[in-house]
């Protein structure tokens, strides 16, 4: 059986891995139905109203799962990591307080949006989508900024092991915040865009090449197309930030064991922590130095140059990093391919291979989110708060956490199975004609 710390980490990891999918959809999907209903309102095109309606009702069920799994997380801070929260609560807690208000706003306007189709005027109804999209992005900012603080803790002093003189703004605007928040939020829009696009790509692949499916595919991919290239830039900036500010994590994600001037970028490969070398990688000379420090001859510190009980396990960081980067590049290529071809041929081209690429990108987008989050978390180890508190020291003194781990594993399996069944069945439902917009532009 796992010991307490391992069980607590596994349970926290499982809970976050589950929640992050719904959080990402909860951030990305509102932007999509905001745009779709906006187009419907402007042009009177019923198809876009159908889309907004369909996406919103899916958002409702996903948001609910996100809300309950997020509640679980807020309790797990105490149930699994009481020592950590006892230290951190007074420092980062107020950010969660602000996030609570953002969450409130999101829930309120989502309720209005989903249940208000026929109780609000079309314009008022569309306006409700704005606070949903904005507050979900603000929620992401708050939550991710606390993770930034765990990576770059600032804004407090420690006296007798207790935090004092907390400066809330310094805590929230920690050095890692801009990089992590941008990367995490953009990832949500990209993933939501591809997830929605894949549904329609799949329908088209099966021969349902209706106007409706085509419009929905283009709209969802357009959102992904705006954010996917930006995400590549944000990733590059994030890696450079790590090179300067969390060199252990940078070394682990590059698979760099020995300090080296003009370090190569390793593509693929397996970091062998026994022999302290990364095997089977394709090496691009000097590229890691160039990407990390804008200088091909800059020195990249290797993992061997740090105290060996203060470094992450490169085996849990380098592969995730590779997966994330590869998927990020793939997704950027897919949108360039799609819209490049459309521009070249002056019409939307939906060839079989292109549709398959879009469908593949959807699960990969979420895998990239999981991978990015894994590398952030594993890359910070053995610290829960970088250079302040070790993960093992933050855990609960309680025995038997492994039982709770198994219990929640079953809960998540049940939840995921129910949801999958529901969404699968829903997709097989035919479209139904909608009642005309009350007072909308298409009413004769």
């Amino acid at each position, binding site marked *: 059986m796992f010991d307490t710390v391992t069980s607590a980490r596994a349970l926290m990891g499982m809970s976050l891995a589950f929640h992050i999918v719904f959080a990402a959809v909860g951030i990305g999907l509102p932007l999509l139905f905001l745009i779709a209903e906006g187009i419907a309102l402007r042009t009177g095109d019923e198809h876009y109203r159908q889309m907004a309606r369909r996406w919103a*009702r*899916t958002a*409702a*069920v996903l948001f*609910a*799962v996100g*809300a*309950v*799994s*997020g509640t679980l997380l*807020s*309790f797990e*801070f*105490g*149930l699994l990591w*009481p020592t950590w*929260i*006892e*230290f*951190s609560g007074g420092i980062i*807690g*107020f950010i*969660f*307080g*602000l*996030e*609570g208000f953002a*969450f409130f*706003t999101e*829930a*309120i*306007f989502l*309720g*209005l949006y*989903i*249940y*208000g*189709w*026929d*109780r609000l005027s079309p314009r008022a109804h569309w306006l409700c989508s704005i606070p949903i999209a904005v507050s979900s992005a603000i929620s992401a900012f708050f939550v991710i900024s606390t993770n930034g603080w765990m990576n770059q803790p600032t804004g407090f002093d420690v006296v007798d092991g207790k935090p004092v*003189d*907390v*400066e809330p703004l310094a805590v929230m605007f920690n050095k890692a915040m801009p990089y992590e928040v941008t990367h995490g939020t953009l990832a949500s829009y990209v993933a939501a865009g591809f997830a929605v696009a894949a549904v329609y790509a799949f329908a088209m692949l099966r021969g349902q090449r209706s106007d409706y499916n085509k419009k929905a595919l283009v709209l969802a991919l357009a959102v992904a197309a705006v954010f996917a290239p930006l995400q590549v830039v944000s990733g590059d900036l994030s890696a450079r930030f790590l090179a300067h500010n969390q060199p252990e994590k940078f070394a682990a994600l590059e698979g760099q064991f020995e300090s080296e001037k003009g370090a190569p970028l390793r593509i693929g490969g397996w970091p062998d922590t026994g022999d302290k070398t990364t095997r089977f990688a394709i090496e691009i000379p000097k590229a890691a130095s160039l990407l990390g420090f804008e200088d091909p001859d800059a020195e990249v510190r290797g993992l061997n140059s740090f105290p060996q009980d203060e470094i992450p396990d490169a085996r849990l960081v380098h592969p995730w990093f590779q997966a994330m980067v590869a998927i990020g590049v793939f997704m950027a290529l897919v949108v360039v391919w799609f819209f490049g071809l459309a521009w070249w041929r002056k019409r939307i081209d939906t060839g079989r291979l292109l549709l398959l690429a879009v469908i593949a990108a959807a699960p990969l987008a979420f895998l990239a989110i999981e991978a990015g989050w894994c590398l952030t978390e594993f890359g910070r180890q053995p610290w829960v708060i970088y250079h302040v508190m070790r993960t093992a020291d933050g855990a*609960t*003194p*309680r025995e038997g956490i492994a039982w709770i781990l198994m*219990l*929640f594993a079953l*809960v998540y399996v049940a*939840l995921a199975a*129910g*949801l999958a*069944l*529901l969404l699968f*069945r*829903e997709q097989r*439902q035919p479209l*139904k004609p*909608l*009642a005309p917009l009350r007072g909308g532009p298409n009413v004769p």
Partner: protein
Amino acid sequence: MSLENLAAAVALVGLIAYAVFGGADFGGGVWTALASGRRAAEQREAIFRAMGPVWETNHVWLILVVVVLFTAFPPAFADLSTALLVPLVIALVGIVFRGAAFAFRHYGHVVEVGLPATNAVFSVASIITPLALGAAVATAASGNITIENGAVTSGLWEPWLQPFPIVCGLVAVAMCGFLTAYYMTTRASGELLEDFRMRGLIASLVLGALTTIALPVAYWDAEPFWDQVTDPVPLVVMGAAVAMGLASLVVLWRRWYLLAPPVAAGAVALVIGGFGAVQYPYLILPHERIADVAAGDSTLAAFLIALPIGALILIPSLVLLYVTFSEKTGGPSAEAEEYGY
């Protein structure tokens, strides 16, 4: 009022709001389980329609309470989490299944695909959650949690598997059913209204009986709690709770339905307020005082400044939500007509 007392008051207000709003949603599960007679399906349907737009918002109050605790009183949050591990895990499983079952049921309704057993899961989860949460809150006031040198020494089971926490857990379930029945009287009409009136009257009697039993049980099982009950402030608040409870009986008996929701909410708020008054100035009786476990002043000040700013956005939005969806849910909604249910 000192900053830490203000923060504790915010936690209590959050708990009351969770009980008054979120409690009614759990009560929806209680009455889904107990739906009976020729109109059983209608009763369930009316409850589901009333809850749909608001339950997630109502749920956020719980998160607010948790956040206030770990921000303003980190050591107490850590110790409560450690001491109450088992009931909190039970409540969390309930929260997850309740929310998921509700969302799945609504979604399944709209798209005309159902999942099996969503009603049953929703009902069971809606009952065990307030039971476990009520027991957990009561345990913190029972004196059953032991803390030595800053570390929790009581076991996983014995602090909360005791008469007083269990009775309080039952009180919490009864409160939820009570609130729902009272709220539904303004949203139902005809025979359905009579159903909810009868349920409201029964629930108020059950709630009255359970809260009355809770006092001798406290005397016998939760000495630190009992010692504090006899102070003047708790006595006054609890007296007011009793009066409000009696008023709620009269209101339904005389069919003054417009008064039913505020009176029911007031009774529940006073019961929990009285509980808070008993616990003051402790967070964990009799070990941790509010003042001893509070975070630093800069933290408390930042938090207490953020709250009213957030409330400026929150309160108008909440009003908009409740006003938009406050009408009777008896007839079919336009969406129901459109989707044919």
